């Protein structure tokens, strides 16, 4: 029983990281119909940036994290939106999907060819060791991940629901034209979404890289999981991404322990396929009307 509980808790911790990446994914979709196939690389780049600031500039991890947040907002938020999304969004979803696919390949190979093809170790933001409560043990890293991810999610939800800016962003997500008529600066709200996505990716990088290691293709796996999570939970619901992320993390852990480590991904993948086929709007999502 204690084993099962431990597996579930560490699954939720891993799932929380997927949820962060998935959250950014759904926010971009809601605000601007952007399906970002480079979401995994958006986690990989900050991992390398933080390592660069730590090793080359000799900064402590927290300072490297804050600095990377700023760089990421400029690079993965502002520049990504201006250079890639803005010119392409008029043409519809597909060209943008292809362009982000190109971005994913380009960035990955650039890091592989220009930086390193090897996996680099990354400092753990949390202390090593296990917290033991009788039979039940949980690692400090899992606790720290849950706390940090939980704080980010609650902070984001509060921002979206309680502040004027956050509510304006939701209005843009729900109905862009109506929001514009009401005098909301749509462009700015969409830009905020891109900045938030960049910061979420940096946090995900901080939490995931100590175990995944910094490698050019580390984004493949996390990008895919974020994608599953967003679809399972519901593409057009922020809460959906959270549920989806946690479900994927927990299912992975349980499958790995009880069914077969080789099929670790399998059950989450099956859930993903079942959701697409039986409930395409996702577990928590709302069905979208067909637009003529």
């Amino acid at each position, binding site marked *: 029983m204690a084993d099962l509980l431990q597996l579930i808790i560490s699954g939720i911790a891993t799932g929380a990281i997927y949820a962060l990446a998935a959250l950014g994914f759904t926010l971009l979709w809601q605000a601007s119909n952007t399906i970002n196939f480079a979401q995994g690389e958006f986690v990989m780049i900050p991992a390398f940036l933080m390592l660069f600031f730590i090793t080359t500039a000799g900064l402590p991890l927290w300072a490297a994290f804050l600095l990377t947040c700023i760089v990421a907002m400029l690079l993965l938020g502002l520049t990504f939106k201006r250079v*890639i999304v803005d010119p392409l969004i008029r043409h519809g979803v597909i060209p943008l999907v292809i362009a982000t*696919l190109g971005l994913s390949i380009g960035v990955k190979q650039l890091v592989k060819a220009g930086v390193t093809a090897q996996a680099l170790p990354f400092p753990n933001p949390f202390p090593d060791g296990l917290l033991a409560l009788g039979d039940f043990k949980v690692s400090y890293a899992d606790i720290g991940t849950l706390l940090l991810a939980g704080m980010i999610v609650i902070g984001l939800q509060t921002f979206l629901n309680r502040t004027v800016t956050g509510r304006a962003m939701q209005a843009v997500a729900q109905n862009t034209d109506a929001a514009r008529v009401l005098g909301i600066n749509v462009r700015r709200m969409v830009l905020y979404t891109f900045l938030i996505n960049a910061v979420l990716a940096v946090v995900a990088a901080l939490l995931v890289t100590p175990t995944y290691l910094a490698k050019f293709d580390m984004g493949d796996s996390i990008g895919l999981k974020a994608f599953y999570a967003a679809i399972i939970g519901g593409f057009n619901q922020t809460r959906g991404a959270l549920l989806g992320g946690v479900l994927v993390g927990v299912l992975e852990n349980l499958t790995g322990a009880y069914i077969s480590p080789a099929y670790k991904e399998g059950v989450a993948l099956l859930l993903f396929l079942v959701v697409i086929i039986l409930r395409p709007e996702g577990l928590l999502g709302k069905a979208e009307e067909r637009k003529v």
Partner: protein
Amino acid sequence: MKSARIIGLVAALAVYAILPQFLKSYGVYLMTLLCVYLMAVFGLNLIVGYAGQMSIGQAAFYGIGAYIAGILMAKMGISFWIVLPLAAIICFVVGLALGFPALRVQHHYLAFATLGFNVLVFLVMRNEEALTGGTFGISNIPRPSLFGYSLDGALPFFYFSYASVILLALVLWWLLRSPWGRAFAALRDNPIRAESTGVNITAYTLLAFAIGAACAGIGGAYLAALVNFIEPGQFHLSVSLMMLLAVIVGGSGRFFGPVLGSVIVILLPEWLRFLQDWYLAIFGFALIVMMVFLPGGLLSIADRFKSAGGTK
């Protein structure tokens, strides 16, 4: 104009047929690989370019075809000529089974379903060692013979694959010219209007998807016979993405788009070996630039010039 085009096409086909005579075995191998790859990519163009659906799982069908050939030919000694139609039929049926539920609900969900399917197929190939050989793959897959004439050599197998891909292209071309094929264009350009004129969108799209999958299955069987060895890495999700990009780069919905795209994806990296990993880095960023300035693919340049000339 029309006849000039046909002459150009025949000349290009003839050059491609003669070229291997002057190449070493690796060059012949690459030219054969392009033919085999094209079978799958022609099929994908039917799905993406004509039926207007995103499929991110073409390599899964390519792999299913290859593993059917590998298992039946290498392990059980069954003839290529039985395996080939079997691979096509199984991929067609699996395509129907995957596409039917995915297309019934909402159209762009086919992209997501094929993505998941590809990852799942990859896991099965890697983990079911008893059947697929796991990461070790299946080796010693024999090459077929035709009317008692062995196709073991590099050149005979090249001509066999080359003739096959041309035949496949002709079938697809005929299909697209038929009234049945013309419904595709209507579908892609304005699905709602096509539906209102009596085209059953779901049935047509589903059929296109299944035929595209069958083409990949055929290509997979040829691939197994070409390289004699298959392993899961050849059918990873990233291979599907490259196939999709090959269609888009060349110009989706253009009959010869896949040819140009496949050359860029398969042959150019070999010629530009000195660039190593930089090739894909450049390719990735070039893709973004292309989507901004030339979203119709490289073959749409010609149209650009034509319309520019027409307005003068």
